[in-house]
């Protein structure tokens, strides 16, 4: 493994095993393989791309939202090997060979996950732009802690900003699916 480069524009073509860097127009792209919502996928994107940029701008899988691109708002939360991460802070190199679940991946035979239904039925969805991120954060919480206390719920969701609801109905939604 001998990839040393200062800037993308200086790299022409480098080869190492399966991974191929190619110049694509005036950008350099690299191939990444990972499992997305249960299915293996391969993408060719600039190596500095984040998972969020890949999901939205390349795959056009837009359920995952871009609220700040800075890791501050949580709208882009997805599961990486079952743990909640900010996809805007996750580089594609960190995703290589791993498993990603987005809000679309929670559907089973096109029926919604119980967390998705709980958010919709509790009135926890207004403009809805924060909703997919909150649902993924809730999912991750419940997978690791099926019976969280109110304090534990607030702690788990404190990184997911919502500007519409005032959070009361979000809390209600999570309490509804708590075991």
């Amino acid at each position, binding site marked *: 493994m001998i990839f040393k480069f200062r800037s993308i524009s200086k790299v022409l073509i480098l080869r190492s095993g399966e991974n191929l860097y190619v110049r694509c*127009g*005036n*950008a350099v792209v690299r191939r990444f393989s990972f499992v997305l919502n249960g299915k293996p996928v391969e993408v060719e994107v*600039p190596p500095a791309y984040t998972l969020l940029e890949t999901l*939205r*701008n390349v795959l*056009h899988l*837009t*359920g*995952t*939202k*871009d*609220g*700040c*691109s*800075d890791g*501050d*708002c949580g*709208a882009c939360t997805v599961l990486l090997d079952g743990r909640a991460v900010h996809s805007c802070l996750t580089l594609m190199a960190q995703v290589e060979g791993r498993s990603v679940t*987005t*809000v*679309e991946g*929670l*559907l089973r035979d096109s029926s*919604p996950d119980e967390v*998705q*239904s709980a*958010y*919709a*039925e*509790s*009135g*926890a*969805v*207004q*403009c*809805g*732009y*924060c*909703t*997919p991120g909150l*649902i993924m954060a809730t999912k991750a919480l419940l997978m690791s802690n099926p019976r969280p206390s109110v304090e534990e*719920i*607030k*702690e788990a*969701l*404190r*990184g*997911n*900003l*919502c*500007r*519409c*609801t*005032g*959070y*009361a*109905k*979000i*809390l209600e939604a999570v309490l509804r699916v708590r075991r």
Partner: protein
Amino acid sequence: MAQAQRWVGKPIPRRDALEKAIGQAKYASDLFPEGLLWGKVLRSKYPHAKIRRIDVSSAKSHPGVVAVFTHEDVPNNRYGLFNKDRPVLCDDKVRYIGDPIAVVAAETPEAAEEALGMIEVEYEPLPAVLDPLEAMKPESPKVHERGNIARQTRISFGDVEQAFREADVIVENTYTVGTQIHAYLETEAGISYFDENGRLTIVAGGQSPYRDRHEICSTLNIPEDSVRVVIPHVGGAFGGKDDISVQIHLALITLKTRRPARLVWTREESTIAGTKRHAGIIRMKTAARRDGVLLANKTEIIYDTGAYEGLGPAVLDVAIENCNGPYKIPNIDISATLVYTNNYVASAFRGFGAPQVLFAIESQLDAIAERLNMDPIELRLRNALRRGDVGVFNNKLIGSVGIAKALEIAANHELWRERGRYKSETARPWIKRGVGVASAIKGYTLGALPDKGQVGVELTREGKFRVRVSSTEIGQGVLAALAQVAADMLRCGVDDIQLVFADTLETPDTSVTSASRQLFLAGNALADAARKMLDKMRHVAAGLSGEPPEVFDFLDGYAISRDGKTRISYAEIARYMENNNIPPHVVGEYEVPRVEPIPGTLEIPHLFYMFAAALALVEVNTLTGFAQVRKLVVIPDAGKVINPQTFQGQIEGAAVQGIGYALMEEAKIENGILKTQNFATYLIPSIKDAPEIEVIPVEDGEETGPFGAKGIGEIGIIPIAPAVANAIKDAVGVRPTSIPITPEKLYWLIRSKHGEKGSH
């Protein structure tokens, strides 16, 4: 016709909720048309500078760049809703950091970003106008040729000076209120393309498709029927998408390149270039008699509208209208000034000028109650407006006025009655608790401005209804509420109502989605349309059955004769209409009643007002100055609640925005530079900052509203900051006069009080 309510009043989940929860709802930022160009905007580096030269030649020749546009590409380079003072792309000057100078369109986002850095702009920096008080002086540098006073007016009724001489108590304070940023989770975003009929189509987050279209067409000098504006689900707006953001730039790219385009602001771009709530200075002198009757209020309002007016002139009107609170005050004198500075752009934000002045008057009321040793709610009730009263502008209040009832509920609430016990329940001696109250008032509708809207209703072949409105779904739930209203008016199931919304090609003009009145306006226009539709259907039923039309009534999707023997389904009626070429659609219209504006104003008074009372339990750490809201009780005058779930959500969400406004959200602008450009520095409430919120609606009914409903979208934020400030006064004995009440400000305020004590 007595309208049974089968759907109105039910807490049914919003139909768009699940679609959003599974990630299928498409927002403007989710759209990627085939073959799109990526748009990026070059923004000013200086708060105030002359533009000497713009050179885009090297940016244009950068690989991947298709076009670069400047002011030379814009035929009519000024727009604005009241005053056309804002350039689409700056020409002579830049007036705030973020003012747009050029638009790049490129094959990749990377190429567009790189090209921005290759545009050469030669500036001649000018002294920046930063302080609104300095800006008002004649010797100040000018932001615009016409001077820095964008609007100034004085309104007085009665004789305040005489009343001050007769008063038993006079309270005088200067309040300062900070800039608030909307901080919706979806930034300003859109796409543009030519549709199959060669129509220029803009799909972008906004609040008013027809008004956006007008701004696009007037600046680019193209006919309105050649442009279509669509507003899909919007990821939050709160007034911040009332003004133009990406729309004209997108239209320009597609018009000139004939290619689809996508333009999405970054978070930093949104906080910088998006509009904001007006910062301001409010001086208030209020007088009362010993028995608590208010005698006079003299107010000076100075609002900083920043580089451009936006909706500032109307915001100033709303400040004037509401600065006396929901009270009868016989003598008032208001001087109000809207000032240009180089501090970004202020325009509409939920509450629209009212939260600032209500913070002032509600703090004044509390101070008077304290001086008179009177219960603060009792003082408010003594002066509260009631239906039929004559308001401070000699305006008769013909609409419902629920403030007294809201205050009575507050007075009887456990949090108020047992506030002594609540206050004593603190864990540490340095943690102090207090309970505060505040009232709120704001007009809904556009006041004295003409305001008319249309709604289309169409009977489909299946016997269901398609309702067409240009109302925008910005998160508030108007579509769900309209579906419920439509189902009851058209006597069918709520699932039989399909809504087509916010599309200048597909929906009639239902006027702008602002001023808390879309349900009121569209609901009333819908009532007119439903009447026309049912009348049409009644005649068809008569034709089908041979019975006279007047025997038919409607229930659950059937026309039913009075004796119950004839039942004709809506689907049968639809088929008959189709076979006999009877057009299956109608258009309903509603013009909002209004009065003439009082001299010196644009749009006040309103005929219709919303009201609310709020109680806040606040905890203050006297060692750090950190204040936290523990409990809120919000009591809005709702007229009639159409959907309790949506209603509570609106009030809870507004209340938490109010907590942010009161305590946390500090948009720091230093030397014209916004220092808080993201969510790490501009802190909006998280789930940890949101307290328990109890919402208690007053439902006295507003006869002019659909099923008795009135506007509620903005009222929830207005009483929060003063209730929190009054609770802080109750907790620690010092009165905050500047919001946001940050720990730093409160720490020094508490220290200054102890300092005074120590000096004895």
